[in-house]
């Protein structure tokens, strides 16, 4: 995609997001959000995030750790850290450090 196309896409993504933010706030009681839809909405973040993360971790990368891919090992450690600490920064640090360590070992 060209730079212009990417910027246009960003504007469209922003407009879409703004429309959702403004929806009920502006339309007020004329709109309703029923229970079934609300349940479905609650599951969306977990579904999108899992669908984004799985292919990224299981895709074969350049660095191997025995039979395993370095990114998969680093991702597993990061997931454990995320579970224990719920911290974005610790998760990021753990994942990157393991990946760098494995890359260094493989070199």
């Amino acid at each position, binding site marked *: 995609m060209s730079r212009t196309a990417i910027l246009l896409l960003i504007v469209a*993504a922003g407009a879409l997001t703004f429309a959702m933010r403004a929806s009920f706030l502006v339309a007020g009681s004329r709109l309703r959000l029923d229970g079934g839809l609300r349940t479905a909405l609650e599951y969306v973040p977990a*579904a999108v995030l899992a669908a984004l993360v799985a292919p990224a971790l299981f895709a074969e990368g350049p660095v191997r750790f025995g039979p395993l891919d370095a990114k998969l090992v*680093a991702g597993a450690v990061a997931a454990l850290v995320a579970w224990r600490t719920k911290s974005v920064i610790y998760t990021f640090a753990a994942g990157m450090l393991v990946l760098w360590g494995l890359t260094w070992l493989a070199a």
Partner: protein
Amino acid sequence: MLLGLIPFGMIVGVSGVSIGMPVIDVVFMSAVVFAGAAQLATLALLGASSAPWVVLVTVALINLRHLMYSAALAPLMARYTVMQRLAMAYFMVDHTYTVGVLRYRQEGDDYDRRRHWLGMGTVTSAMWLASTALGGVVGAQLPEALQLDFALPLMFLALLVPLLRDRPTVVVALVAGGLALALANLPYNLGLVVATLCGVAAGTVLSSVRKRRSVDGVARDEP
């Protein structure tokens, strides 16, 4: 909580330049979209040459939660004009929503919600833009050998794992993740959209079955 935005914003900046975007474009994105997870997903998809409509559908899905935020905030802000509520909508992010709704429900009607919301929103937005810019500038100096593109899946993990608190949500993640892997070769990253929708469908069905069972009093495996 607000300080947690800084590393998050920096990673958005780093990820943006790691897929070849100019720093100014990444900052522009932080101003226009102002939603971390959606921005990271957009960068991941642009890096993987996805179709524009797949990017937009993904952004819409990730940001659907703002509909719930908007519905919860609406009665609290009903006294303000439409123009003022439009301005308020811009600042609606996870952080401002959580802090704001809690506070406005506790404080009485005399509390100046507009002032608090716009003040908090301005600070949050300024921090978001500054940390994106900082991440972009730093990221552009770092060598490719650091494999900073791995920051994206790490961030998705950091956001996903704390959500996995109950069984239906774990099933949602397993179905969506598994299908995304199986469908990874579909064109335009279409598999992402299909996997997400199937995951949500699985969770909705499962939770309605569980609800029915617990109403019948037959089984209740979790408090």
